[in-house]
């Protein structure tokens, strides 16, 4: 029956583009808007989400045949909360400054819709390999969008990307880009651009 499920290529394409969690499904908006003031926190958040997605998809896929329908969501949340706690502890132990920068947004991955969406839509129905590929594709799709958003905001807010000065000395930083308004405007423009490219009407 496994061959009737999604193929590796379709899962990768879905995660990176056609069902990109941020640009197409508009999931995970809280970290997308909150931690993209620069590339480094955006990248850290993205990698944390990839770790949690892969681990939770593995666990959910392995136990999919044992799950009782009424305990399904509870089991997903239990698995997700465990791996988010591990990711949070890792950052506090090995990247304390980044942990302080990201603040509550790492623990908030527990309620990130992308994770529970993939557990429900893919891992609870598919085999281990497809579940891992799905987690990786969705996680990379999420991370790439966060990094692009972070790079645009960091560039316009400070003139730098990854602490490397890009803009000429005469450039006047746009303070608004570091604030929530900068996140909303940049994400809105990115969504508009994607809709334009795909020919999707509002």
């Amino acid at each position: 029956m496994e061959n009737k499920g999604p193929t590796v290529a379709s899962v990768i394409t879905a995660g990176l583009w056609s069902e990109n969690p941020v640009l197409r499904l508009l999931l995970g908006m809280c970290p997308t808007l909150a931690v993209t003031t620069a590339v480094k926190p955006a990248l850290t958040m993205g990698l944390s989400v990839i770790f949690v997605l892969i681990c939770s998809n593995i666990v959910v896929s392995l136990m999919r045949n044992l799950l009782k329908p009424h305990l399904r969501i509870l089991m997903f949340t239990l698995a997700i909360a465990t791996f988010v706690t591990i990711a949070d502890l890792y950052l506090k132990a090995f990247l304390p400054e980044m942990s302080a920068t990201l603040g509550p947004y790492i623990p908030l991955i527990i309620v990130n819709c992308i994770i529970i969406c993939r557990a429900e839509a893919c891992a609870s129905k598919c085999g281990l390999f497809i579940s891992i590929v799905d987690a990786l594709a969705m996680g990379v799709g999420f991370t790439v969008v966060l990094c692009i958003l972070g790079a645009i905001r960091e560039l316009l807010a400070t003139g730098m990307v990854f602490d490397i000065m890009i803009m000429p000395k005469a450039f006047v930083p746009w303070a608004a880009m570091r604030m929530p308004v900068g996140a909303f405007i940049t994400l809105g423009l990115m969504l508009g651009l994607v809709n334009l490219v795909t020919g999707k009407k509002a």
Partner: protein
Amino acid sequence: MLKKVWLYIEQSWLLIVSSFIFGLLIAVTNTAWQPRIEQNKKDKLNNLMNVLIADAEFELAVPDVQVDLGRGKFAKSNVYKAIGPAGSCKGYCFGAEGAGFADKIELVIAVDAAFEKIEGYSVLSSNETPGFGDQIVNDFYRQQFIGAPLGKLNLEKTGDDKKIDDEIVAISGATVSSTAVVNIFNNYLEQMKAKITAEGISADGK
């Protein structure tokens, strides 16, 4: 009765077993990394204190000093004594907190050994507005406190920010955050001085 218990186990065994396994996983991870996390916190505090009072070793002078934050709120803070290379007291450092614009602001405040003037402050944590309130970490604002008399500080919207006295010039566009820092100083300084003196440590650091 036995049938009900069996039904309960049949329905929930996976949840119970998973809870134990996940709980164990978190416990093992926490045990492995917690010493490092605690060390990171100590290092951060030590680094901040070393920025405020250079060339000093810090030892815990008075633990858990209770400070009245007003409106029925209290906070506890450790007071650290800065000991210079010659063994003399160079000053004191302590954590301080108060309400900011967006969230709680946590500072490390340093005062001289005689408790007569402020040596400075560093920001331990804050979530103030980027580009505005987060300028409380900048030298423009922080340097106004270095050498200021230990007493009630007043916040002014305009003035000479280079003049060291009890008047602090607010950050433009961040009056709430500026006020929050001044309020933290006003809340803590007198109370800390009184508590430390009450602990039997004289004002000259002996």
